[in-house]
Structure formats: structure tokens, C-alpha cells
């Protein structure tokens, strides 16, 4: 498992999707907010970090998983004695480590651009939230990539899932003025739990942090089971 983890970590670090979705996009957002909304830019950091981790953990890994399946490597993996859960957990863990590093980079950039103060307790509480959420989103990405036949389908299917998750959260708009049914959706939205967890880390709100962590652990268990049960070795 360690070798699979380390090799996947090494290979994923060189991925161009990673650079675009998870570093350049958040950097551009931070700079744009600083220029156009200088009074509010500091308040968007949690949202930008959450979206960055979500896009990387879900979108990027879904494309990688689909690409590997279409190349036939999962079929070959099937012929080896490695249990599927070990493979999925190993590669997902390496992607989650990258997501954590990315969140640190985005956070550091936002702090520098907005000249904000920083406390290490934020990192201490933010890290497990990102780890669990990122793993859940990676497991979900395996599920989504198993449902589709090609990149076009994947893009559409991922958007169908991602856009409601993003819009039914406090990442971009406050949910206070949203219709009731949107507010109910946000209550069962894993992305909202993730966002709340990060916000709680910034605010030192331990009850909200603990609640978010527990909900995300439940989500992690469920998505792992779904990804294992639906994993598709080949298109045949």
C-alpha cells in the first residue's frame, strides 16, 4: 500500500489538471476578489479553499480514474492479488495529501495577498477536515467515473452533482435568504459540512468543527462502500 501511495503521489504531482484547477484558479479568484471586493476578500478564504479541494478531489481524480480504466489498467489490476480496497484507499490517500498541501498553498497565498493574521491552530483543525472531506470526494469520484463511458459523459455527470452541491452551500451566497427547500438541501450537503468544518477551524468554533467532522466521517464511510461496490474494472 505504501508503494502504491507514494508512486501515485509522485505521478499526481506532475498532473496539469492539478495546476490549473487547484492552484491557478484559486489564485486568480483571490487576486480578483482583492481587486474588486477589497473589503470582503478575507471572508472568502474558506470558500475558496473548500472549492479548490472539492474540484481537485472530485473532478480531477474522476478524470484520472476514467482515463486509467479506459487504458485497461484496472483490468490488469483485477488479475493481481491486490484487494481493490487497498488500491482505492492507497491512491485516494495520496490524492488527499495533495489536496491538503494545495489548501495550505492557497491559504498562504490568500494570507499574503490580503495581509491577514494567521494562527497555527487553524491548520491543526483544518487538516483533518480536509483529509476526510477530500477522501470522501475522491471515493465519490470513483463512483461517478464508474457510471460513465467517456469524458463527455463524465463532465456532464460531474457537473450535475457538483453545481447543486456548490450552489446549495454558503460558499458563494448566504443561505439565510435562500428558499426553505434550498436550506434543507444544504443541511444534507457534504460540501456544506466541509465548508462549515473549515469555517469552524478559522473561527475556533469547536462544536461546529466536531459536528462537521462527524458528518464527514459518515459521508466517508458511505462513499467508500459505494465506490467499492460500483467500481468498474473495464468497459466490457
Amino acid at each position, binding site marked *: *500500500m505504501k*508503494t*502504491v501511495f507514494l*508512486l501515485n503521489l*509522485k*505521478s*499526481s504531482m*506532475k*498532473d496539469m489538471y492539478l495546476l490549473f484547477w487547484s492552484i491557478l484558479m484559486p489564485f486568480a479568484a483571490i487576486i480578483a476578489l482583492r481587486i474588486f471586493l477589497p473589503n470582503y476578500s478575507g471572508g472568502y478564504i474558506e470558500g475558496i479553499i473548500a472549492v479548490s479541494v472539492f474540484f481537485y478531489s472530485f473532478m480531477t481524480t474522476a478524470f*484520472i480514474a476514467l*482515463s*486509467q480504466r479506459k*487504458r*485497461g*489498467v484496472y*483490468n*490488469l*489490476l*483485477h*488479475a*493481481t*492479488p*491486490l484487494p481493490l480496497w487497498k*488500491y482505492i484507499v492507497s491512491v485516494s490517500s495520496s490524492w488527499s495529501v495533495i489536496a491538503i498541501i494545495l489548501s495550505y498553498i492557497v491559504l498562504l497565498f490568500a494570507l499574503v495577498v490580503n495581509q491577514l493574521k494567521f494562527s497555527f491552530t487553524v491548520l491543526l483543525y483544518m487538516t483533518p477536515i480536509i483529509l476526510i472531506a477530500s477522501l470522501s470526494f475522491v471515493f465519490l469520484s470513483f463512483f461517478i467515473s464508474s457510471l460513465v463511458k467517456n469524458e463527455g459523459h463524465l463532465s456532464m455527470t460531474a457537473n450535475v452533482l457538483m453545481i447543486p452541491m456548490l450552489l446549495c452551500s454558503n460558499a458563494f451566497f448566504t443561505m439565510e435568504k435562500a428558499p426553505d427547500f434550498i436550506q434543507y438541501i444544504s443541511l444534507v450537503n457534504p460540501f456544506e459540512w466541509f465548508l462549515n468544518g473549515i469555517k469552524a477551524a478559522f473561527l475556533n468554533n469547536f462544536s461546529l468543527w466536531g459536528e462537521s467532522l462527524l458528518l464527514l466521517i459518515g459521508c466517508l464511510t458511505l462513499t467508500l462502500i459505494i465506490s467499492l461496490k460500483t467500481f468498474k*474494472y*473495464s468497459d*466490457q
Partner: protein
Amino acid sequence: MKRLISARQLTKNYKARCVVDHINIDIQEGEIVALIGSNGAGKTTTISMLLGIVPQDSGTIEYWTSDYKKEIGTQLQSTPFFEGYSVEDNMKLFAAFYGMTLTNKKIDDKLAAFDLLYVKKTPAIKLSLGQQKRLAIIVTTLHNPKLVILDEPSAGLDPRGQKEIQHIIKRLKESGVAVLFSSHDMLEVMNVADRILIMHHGKIMANGSPDGLIVQYQTQNLEDLFFELTK
């Protein structure tokens, strides 16, 4: 000789189409068995069932060991490698799938033996087809299997590449490894195989040594025999 695989009445249907139809296959220790047949004859499906990748609809497969996946090396027709991984990293990854850790020396030795040392750091998917086929066989034998199953190992290769694959298969036999390979190339089969299985429309039409079958069916050569049995 010990029997490594014994498949009985193996059958596979895809929807209403019977792809493999009640076939029996035995593979003995140390022998080279060629599975030959036209496109769509059922060779790849048969191999996939023997590897445990595709479940059979009926029939049984008995292996000489309970943990057969640890003891079988596999090369699939598409010779897939992990995207974004170098030749070296693909070797390390596949070795890890078998619970092994490769030393740099072992990697270098293996690559040198197959004339691939100079592409060690190259992404595996950027290799030429011939190089990919050779790398696939390296990956197949990393864990010192008792049996190697190769699905069309020489397909798409030039004559030199085909010759190299034949040489590699013979080397495997010399080191005591049994080989099951599928092929369209009668000359290759004649040069390499101890025993052949001719498949047509999901059925085994003939099973025996190349020379023995030519005598039995009174044909000039293996190609004539193949056309005779698959017309």
C-alpha cells in the same frame, strides 16, 4: 508433470451470444500452450476467465494453488500501463500489486535483459508498441510466476519484434515457467508451442502438438489445418 489449470465445460455468453461454448482446457507445468483462432473466436474471453477477470456463466476452473493470482503473470492484449508513470514506476507499481518491493538493481537487470534500460525514466505509455510489449512481459514476470498468460503478445509487431517475443517465450519455458499465449500467427505457434488449442466460434476444434495435429488431420502445415478446422 503437475497440472496447473484444469477448466471444464467453461461457458460464457454475452447477452444472447455464446462466446465460449463448453470448452475444456488443461495447462501442465512447464509447457507452452498456444490458443489460436480468428478474431472473435473467444480467445480473450477464455483467457479473461482463466485469469479470474471475467466470471464464467457455467463450468469450473481448478488451479494448482488456492492463491492463484499470486502465481500467474498476465499480459493483456492492450498492454496497458498507468498513465503518468515512468517505465521504472510502472514496474514498481505492478510489483507492489504482488506484494513485492523492487530494488534498483533488479529493475536495471530486468530492463537490461529486455534491452529497455535506456527508457527507464520514459513514461511507459510513450514507448513504441514493441517496447510496450516487452515491458508488459517484464511486468508479467516480476513476481516469478509459475504460469504466464499472454494475450496476443506479438500482435502488431514487425518481424523482428515478433522474433523477440518468441525468444522471450522460449526463455520463460527454459526457466521452468508454463506459458499460455494466444496468437493469429501460425509460424510463431509452430516455432514456439508444445501444444495448440484451435478455437472457432467459442469451441475448441483441436488440441494437441502442432506436428501431431498435422499428421492426424493429414494437412500440409498448420495454416492448412487451421483453415480446414475453421471453415
